[in-house]
């Protein structure tokens, strides 16, 4: 068990100008499930590999427990990792794959077999111990990779998009399995994904990265309700938050003809425009409000997401509203959308930072 700390950790790949990970400061508590999330190229995998020792730390430091491991080789870090493509040894049986770290650590065969059996039972792999990875399904291979990672009980558990090669149904199931496993073992876990549903459901805390910079780190609910900036607001949540730049006059923001009164703290410094953020569930189809045309309706069961276009300040803007599925308008309908003013978030148009109300 150990905590993990990134202190101004930076990775600059040779031959590139911008660091893949730029001065990352991040603390992962002992036993915590931390998810690193971000779009492609955000530096989340690089950050994980820096922790594993597979990527150099060009400046700053990475700590596991109290030890600065920035220059330590991977095998001295006591971490284990599940790779995106599982990285199983195709020529070894399932039992030998799971027992590999123990074999390298020169654990006696009897003890090794016992622990492999325990892990296999835990992961439902007992029947497959003598098979080769090539004879297993994707989900089974994924479990073998998990087994190899937990068999020696590392101090930190690293996972690099472990579910991205599985089909949707299996992914949801494995997600629950991973959460349960982590809760049982209580091992500090750093998990990389680009899938925000995984991030929100798995992480005790979620760190959002963008272009090598940490945008925000906090519990999933905080990220959803109080995003630090426009990027986090737009990245977390599906469908994404509606973000529109609107003019400010007379202490109110004019959102498509709907005047939204602003608190004094926001108006005080004489801003002439603001970015307003409204989640789809905070935008209703109502009697009056912003006139819009329905482009697409996505029926997801109980709810429907209504994708509309509207004219805002002379530009066509896309808005998404949530509606009860049975009451949802149809494609091509003309509707009016009303934002719930008390649920809207305000962002500074220049810095993108969220404004405290």
């Amino acid at each position, binding site marked *: 068990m150990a905590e993990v700390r990134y202190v101004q950790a930076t990775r600059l790949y040779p031959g590139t100008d911008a660091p893949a990970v730029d001065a990352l400061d991040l603390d992962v508590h002992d036993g915590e499930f931390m998810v690193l999330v971000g779009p492609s190229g955000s530096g989340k995998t690089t950050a994980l590999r820096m922790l594993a020792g*597979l990527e150099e730390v060009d400046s700053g430091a990475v700590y596991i427990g109290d030890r600065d491991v920035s220059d330590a*080789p991977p095998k001295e870090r006591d971490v284990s990792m599940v790779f995106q493509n599982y990285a199983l040894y195709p020529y070894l049986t399932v039992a030998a794959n799971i027992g590999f770290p123990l074999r390298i650590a020169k654990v006696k065969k009897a003890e090794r077999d016992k622990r492999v059996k325990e892990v296999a039972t835990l992961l439902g792999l007992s029947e497959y111990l003598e098979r080769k990875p090539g004879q297993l399904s994707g989900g089974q291979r994924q479990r073998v990779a998990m087994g190899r990672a937990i068999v020696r009980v590392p101090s930190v558990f690293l996972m690099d998009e472990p579910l991205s090669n599985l089909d949707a149904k299996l992914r949801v199931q494995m997600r629950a399995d991973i959460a349960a496993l982590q809760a049982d073992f209580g091992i500090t876990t750093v998990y990389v994904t680009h899938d925000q549903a995984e991030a929100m459901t798995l992480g005790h805390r979620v760190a959002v990265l963008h272009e090598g910079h940490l945008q925000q780190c906090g519990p999933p609910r905080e990220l959803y309700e109080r995003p630090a900036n426009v990027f986090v607001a737009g990245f977390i949540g599906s469908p994404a938050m509606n973000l529109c730049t609107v003019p400010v006059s007379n202490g109110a923001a004019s959102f498509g003809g709907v005047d939204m009164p602003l608190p004094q703290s926001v108006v005080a410094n004489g801003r002439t425009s603001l970015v307003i953020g409204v989640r789809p569930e905070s935008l209703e189809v109502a009697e009056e409000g912003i006139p819009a045309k329905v482009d697409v309706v996505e029926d997801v069961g109980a709810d429907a997401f209504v994708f509309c276009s509207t004219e805002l300040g002379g530009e066509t803007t896309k808005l998404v509203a949530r509606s009860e599925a049975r009451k949802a308008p149809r494609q091509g309908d003309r509707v009016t959308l009303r934002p719930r003013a008390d649920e809207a978030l305000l962002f500074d148009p220049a810095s993108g930072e969220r404004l405290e109300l």
Partner: protein
Amino acid sequence: MASSAAATAQPLDRTRARRRAAWRRRRLVLLLMAPWLIGFSAFFGYPLVMSVYLSFTHYDLLSSPKWIGTANYRYLFTQDPQVGEAVKNTLWIIAVMVPLQVVFAFGVALMLARARRGVGFFRTIFYLPALAPPVAATLAFVYILNPATGPVNVLLKHLGIDGPLWFQSPSWSKPSLVLLGLWGVGNIMIIFLAAILDVPRHLYESAELDGAGPLQRLRWVTLPTISPVILFSVVIGVIAGLQYFTQAYVAANVASGQASQAGDQTVNNLGYPEASTLFYPVELYQHGFRYFNMGYASAMSVLLLVVAFTITVLIIRNSRRWVHYVGAAK
């Protein structure tokens, strides 16, 4: 009546047309395969069959072959005074040279795979000898390893070491040939290099995280992944060892010529010195093209074919335990 006859005639016509089309297709296939079929039959199939036939005859190239039953084989297995030595030498060269070549080629490939600078240069340098014609390469080696005037012994002398007699010494002639074989190992090396570079990086990373050091990564990742290439090079090496001829023939001729300082054709220089380079194919050549005893030479070549086939089958059978094919279910 007329209408029913027409009804049965139509399917018959169709069957005939289909048969004609099938025959046309088969004819095209045969036509396209003809160059290979003719070449294979004329230059491989026919000589093979003829060798088997001639091995049961006495044939001196001048008079027509005379059937003598299994006399050639009986002589080969029970009486030939030289064949024992030839087999011993051949087994020696296979047992020593093949493992050394595989290990050496693998080692060089491993270094080239890890090198950061000058990879192209060193790859070319190590591959270049494989392009040299065997006769020229052997000549050069006999010259370089000349006990009195060759640069190797001159250099050794400067270092205060009395160099061996190399190709002039019965105990050093085979090791000298092994040196020549290692120098020309470029072909296998290139195949090893390609295989090593093809090992997935994440397997190394995973092993490293699991605590494996460089040697363990070699043992648990590199070797199993490239095992099909190791098998290939062992099989090819053993077959080449069984057929080892050109280098031995040239080396013995040139070295014995150096020793006598005259092109004395009366001396039997094959296997020089003291039959230490008398390999099975050299002995076979001697019977066929020196003594013109084609029947006996054919018997020797049939035996060689059977042995090569048997050894290859044994190696491949045994390999199932240690060779892993990527993507294969088992």
